């Protein structure tokens, strides 16, 4: 009891009892989530402004005669003539490990009904990206669990890889699969089955999405056991444009705290197209001049300053990393539109999803020709690098020759072989959603493909054969899989083990 009394006395003593000076303004206009305030002579850009009733706003427009303040909450009670004051603080949000497993809004307030968040610190929403000296090159892979990505478009920790495609092509599925894969790997590492694995914490920022979609994503992550490793920042379609504009930066601040602790973070921005639209709305209401497609002139800077905060830090700077997976929705496959080209030029590669491939049953519908990872094999383990070395080339050649597939009887043996191999690769890369594969399974399957073990399997049975192989390896060759997971390279032991396993499997499979 005496310690509580001492604490209260300390709190009382800490409160300043001197006269407090504040800088105030008067609301002259309010509407559409923006208040035009006269006064506030000492306001700074992005400073928090306090309104009656505890409402908070952000000073975004500093004009000669008035200040444009974007309101972050319900403003129905604010009227002309109301007084507001500066707070002297930039917008900051609660951060900490306690946010993992929680669903919060753009100001860090909980939305999941699980009580208050026990934050470790407050981080500013807008922050300058790490400098050049503080960074380190990307070399540690992010195993997404999606075989086609890990083999041909590898992502590394600290990279920004864009996921781009039309509506309903599987963009969110790729992001969610990656999050689920990280949870599985973290769990395997905690149980000692995965050596030298630094846990990758995940943040999913939902911008402008339907609340039913966000709820479904939460449920999917919970069912996969991934929610406890994930923080969800939600600014749904029914939230104001200002809240949608701030949500990615909030997610970034939460990730930066973990990165500064030396941890690795994966952050998904789903999606930045809606983010740009929300920013356009805010800018137009603030009266800022509009440019191409009515977007403000700094729409590139909107995304560049967000994505530049994702980096891999050097050991001196803590050694943490933040990997970004921004999502962009295109219209009719047009990657040359304004916002898509902006974000493509910012990121370190893109995964392009095509509607045609999706409806052909090739899911994930990744267009290998248009997808690229600028980090490349530096973000692959030795094992994956070895088994997937020529896969992209094989698929490219297959696409070129596909037109001739109808004239099968007129093709030479080598060309027919390329077509057959390509068809089997396409089948192997098909994967069910929410079913990420482990590194060792990917290595085994790709090795089998590379060494021709699927060449004698009919194309329409390749998937069945693959499933049977994976089941066989999981049930009968757990030691071999553990060896691959430990070595992460195709050592002689691993190669010998794979040879034996595939021989045994093919002997029993019909």
């Amino acid at each position, binding site marked *: 009891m005496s310690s509580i009394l001492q604490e209260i006395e300390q709190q009382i003593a800490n*409160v300043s009892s001197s006269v407090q000076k504040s800088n105030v303004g008067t609301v002259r206009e309010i509407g559409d989530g923006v208040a035009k305030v006269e006064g506030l002579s000492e306001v700074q850009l992005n400073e928090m402004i306090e309104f009656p009733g505890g409402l908070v706003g952000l000073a975004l427009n500093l004009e000669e005669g008035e200040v444009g303040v974007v309101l972050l909450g319900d403003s129905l009670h604010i009227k002309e003539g109301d007084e507001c004051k500066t707070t002297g603080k930039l917008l900051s949000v609660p951060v900490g490990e306690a946010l993992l497993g929680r669903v919060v809004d753009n100001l860090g307030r909980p939305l999941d009904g699980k009580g208050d968040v026990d934050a470790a610190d407050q981080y500013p929403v807008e922050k300058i990206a790490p400098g050049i000296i503080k960074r380190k090159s990307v070399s540690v892979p992010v195993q997404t669990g999606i075989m086609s990505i890990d083999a041909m478009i590898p992502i590394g920790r600290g990279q920004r890889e864009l996921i781009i495609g039309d509506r309903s092509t599987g963009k969110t599925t790729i992001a969610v699969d990656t999050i689920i894969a990280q949870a599985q790997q973290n769990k395997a590492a905690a149980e000692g089955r995965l050596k030298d694995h630094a846990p990758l914490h995940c943040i999913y920022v939902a911008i402008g999405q339907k609340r039913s979609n966000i709820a479904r994503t939460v449920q999917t992550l919970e069912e996969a056991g991934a929610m406890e490793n994930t923080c969800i920042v939600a600014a749904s379609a029914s939230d104001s444009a200002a809240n949608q504009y701030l949500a990615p930066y909030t997610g970034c601040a939460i990730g930066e705290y973990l990165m500064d602790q030396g941890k690795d973070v994966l952050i998904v921005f789903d999606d930045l197209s809606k983010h740009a639209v929300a920013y356009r709305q805010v800018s137009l209401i603030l009266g800022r001049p509009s440019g191409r497609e009515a977007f403000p002139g700094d729409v590139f800077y909107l995304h560049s300053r967000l994505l530049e905060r994702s980096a891999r830090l050097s050991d001196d700077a803590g050694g943490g990393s933040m990997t970004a997976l921004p999502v962009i929705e295109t219209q009719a496959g047009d990657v040359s539109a304004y916002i898509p080209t902006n974000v493509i030029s910012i990121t370190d590669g893109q995964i392009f999803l095509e509607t045609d491939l999706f409806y052909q049953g090739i899911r994930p519908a990744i267009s290998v020709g248009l997808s690229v990872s600028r980090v490349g094999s530096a973000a692959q383990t030795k094992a994956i690098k070895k088994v997937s070395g020529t896969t992209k080339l094989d698929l490219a050649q297959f696409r070129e020759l596909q037109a001739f597939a109808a004239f099968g009887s007129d093709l030479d043996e080598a060309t027919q072989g390329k077509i057959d191999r390509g068809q089997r690769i396409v089948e192997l890369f098909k994967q069910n959603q929410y079913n990420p594969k482990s590194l060792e399974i990917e290595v085994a399957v790709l090795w089998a493909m590379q060494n021709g073990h699927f060449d004698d399997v009919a194309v329409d049975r390749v998937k069945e054969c693959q499933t049977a192989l994976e089941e066989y390896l999981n049930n009968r060759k757990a030691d071999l899989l553990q060896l691959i997971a430990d070595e992460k390279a195709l050592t002689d032991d691993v190669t010998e083990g794979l040879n034996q396993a595939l021989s045994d499997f093919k002997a029993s499979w019909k």
Partner: protein
Amino acid sequence: MKVSKDAASSARRIYRLCAPDGKLDEAKLSSAVASIAQSKPRDYRGILHALHRLVRIDAESRQALVESASDLDEASRKRIEENLNSQYGGGLTFEYTSNADLIGGVRIRVGNDVWDGSVQSRLDRLANAF
């Protein structure tokens, strides 16, 4: 009324000419307003509207609104006026009001600056600290 950029710019220029040392010359301003109203230049309503706003802001910046829980005696008023005039370079007009919601102490607003030494604000700060 929506004031055009040109009208706002003209009003600013006129205001600066009527306030050469930062202190508004009322006679000059009256003469300028009368001249505008008579000659009616392009968008003169906008110019007058913008000029009105600038003069209003200037007047508010020189007005000190002193709120206290109970009426202040002469000595207190004199002390407040001396302190504020020394801080703001003189020329302030003072308005005194009572506001029982303050509980005690004084709240002074000069332009956009608010000096809040009321008991209510200290209680609010204490509540926020917890």
